[in-house]
């Protein structure tokens, strides 16, 4: 057992903890924030099942983005869908390979190219389109660079310099049972894993929160039924019940936020 293996073991436990707890807390925070008004972007579904269908089209096909810009849509769609395949392929490091996992292995393998092309396209837009360049902060470029580096280092191991994936599997399955197993001594693997850990650490405090966030977006997840069903938030109800016009007139002992 090497020092590096133990260090990486601890790193991934911490990263997983930050990712799960951080994202979980953020989702809880968003979900419990009041939504005082009905603001779906209309035309909007008039039933809850309609909202589910709208959200499905949004997160699977990126419908709004498709209407907005075909290039951005194409590159974003390529990247995200390929990422799913690549992630699915990676589950083999955590579980036994069944018929489904073996079926998608080649798809996940070559999806990495699609993923990289998508990321390169997004980076190209960020650099070349004056409007997009104007709105980009250093972190927006770094995020793409991070994803590209993760993709490239992974592809290196798949297509150029193979690493001992049985050992990698042993390492991660070990972590799942709080047991240390060694990692192969491969610099590319260490780079790949380090970058993934960084991604996991920054996920809950970055724009990557768009992934869970979209499900909580009021303009997309609200049912268009304001005339049929009265919608009111707790803090607005407080104004009503205390018969006050302005929030600072509310009695002090009341909860500040609804």
């Amino acid at each position, binding site marked *: 057992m090497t020092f590096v293996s133990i260090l990486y073991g601890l790193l991934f436990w911490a990263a997983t903890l930050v990712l799960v707890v951080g994202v979980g807390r953020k989702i809880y925070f968003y979900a419990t924030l009041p939504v005082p008004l*009905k603001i779906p972007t*209309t035309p909007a*579904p008039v039933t809850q099942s309609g909202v589910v269908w709208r959200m499905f089209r949004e997160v699977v096909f990126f419908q709004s983005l498709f209407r907005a810009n075909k290039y951005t849509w194409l590159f974003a769609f390529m990247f995200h869908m390929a990422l799913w395949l690549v992630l699915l392929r990676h589950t083999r490091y955590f579980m036994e390979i069944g018929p489904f996992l073996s079926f998608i292995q080649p798809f996940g393998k070559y999806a990495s190219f699609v993923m990289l092309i998508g990321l390169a396209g997004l980076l190209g837009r960020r650099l070349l389109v004056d409007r997009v360049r*104007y709105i980009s902060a250093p972190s927006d470029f*770094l995020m793409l660079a991070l994803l590209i580096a993760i993709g490239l280092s992974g592809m290196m191991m798949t297509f150029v310099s193979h690493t001992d994936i049985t050992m990698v599997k042993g390492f991660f399955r070990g972590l799942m049972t709080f047991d240390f197993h060694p990692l192969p001594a491969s610099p590319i693997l260490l780079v790949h894993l380090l970058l993934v850990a960084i991604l996991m650490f920054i996920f809950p405090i*970055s724009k990557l929160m768009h992934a869970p966030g979209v499900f909580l977006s*009021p303009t997309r997840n609200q049912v268009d039924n*304001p005339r049929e069903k009265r919608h009111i938030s707790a803090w*607005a109800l407080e104004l009503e019940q205390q018969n006050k016009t302005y929030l600072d007139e509310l009695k002090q002992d009341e909860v500040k936020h609804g």
Partner: protein
Amino acid sequence: MADYEVPKLNGEGVIEIPKIKPDAMAGKGPYIAKPDFQKPLHFPTDFAAEEGGGYTLVPDWKEKALAKMDDLRHRYRSLQLYLDICVKCGACTDKCHYYLGTHDPKNMPVARQDLMRKVYRRYFTFAGKHFPKLVGAVDLTEEVIDDWYNYYHQCSQCRRCSVYCPYGIDTAEVSMAAREILDHIGRGSKYNNEIIGKVFKVGNNLGLPQPALADTLEGLEEDVEAATGIKVRFPLDEEGAEVLLVTPSADFFAEPHVDGLMGYAKVFHEAGISWTLSSYASEGANFGMFIGSYENMRRIALRIREAAIKLKVKRIVFGECGHAWRVAYSFLNTLAGPFDFLDPKYPVPQHILEVTWGLMQEGKLTLDKSKNDDKVLTFHDSCNVARGSRMGDKPGGQFEYPRNVIKAVCNHFVDMPADTIHDATYCCGGGGGLLTDDLMELRIKGAQPRMEALKYVTEQQGVTHMAAICAICKSQFTKVIPYYGFKMEQIVSVHQLVSNALVLTRQVSVQARPDEDDDDEDDGDDDA
């Protein structure tokens, strides 16, 4: 017409995406509301005029601004979420009419949000606190406040950007929050806040008191009688009427708004529906939404509830007004409900087009389409109606109802290019509390995308008139289209078209005054 640089139209119907031109619209923004205008709205008044123009900010403005931002992000999930989850994909960057017309990159929706997002990140996020340069976070300074004031008053809150955002990020939510923060540090806009004060004091945006309103309505009754020979009533404060009509006060005398009001009156008359206006709630507009103030918006909305109770009506109907219909349709039940004292057979509230189209479908209106044969019509979807409300039972009814009514009363109708109608419609350029002369340059440039579309159908399909269902759209267009070579008479109200085509068969109003002598009319036998 004052001299402004007017954009050239390309005649292709759709505007080209311009290269960014930083600071093209840098400036001071609209006139600032003095403390007297802030007071009735319950905003701080401890700031003062400065020598050489301008106003100070309130003491401790920075702490107060940040405290208000913190307060709002905990009251509105939209604000918190939208500040956090934008990935800067750029999908919205070419969707704002103000960006397209002015080329100023701070008018790109995401850049407009960023004005606040950068400050939010600096004070409320881990990355912004520790690595401000990396994530583009900035300190809150007076220059930043000036930028906010200027550019958050270059957003008409039309929500076109939210249609195209993959997460539905709505810049209107951010610009409303920004204005609410600004109102709390001595940076309210005079135009909006003075008007809201008038609503509280007099009952409507124009400051038209009850006697003047009664006079105006009487004048309209005389006008309609002179034109048709029939006493169509325009009742005010008539207790026991079935319908309370709430309409923007511009409908009382602005052109072409007033022709629309005559249309509503004729429809009610012909259908035998008794109705009334209220002098207490003589305003459909609710500028509380524009300034992002839930409290003031609710206070304005509650007048309608009180008027409905006092006048013992059974239904509430709204006239042609875009943001008023958003507040009415989407928010009224929240702000001033529940309306369990009204007739449950009808939705609360209803749009006048829902009433008129309903009557048309029931065959209760006799129409002579040829009365509008001198026109080829197109229709401008108002942003707040298109993207923030609905008509009828089905999604998209807000596009169908006005078109159905226009087609029922006009023989010639064509739509503008698809990228400029329905939920892709462009704002008129004057919505969201920007309909003030001190923003004239912005209003002219912001109208460019709509003007491109109008020019296209004018040249290609012979369109002569554009109908609208919003008081702000009508006022904005009549003022701005002359700059683009059109005539102000080309803007019409939808109910003006109805008014033209409606054949009045009912000789005596169901609300005819008892003291009125009906016998002096030549042919009118009482059939009511």
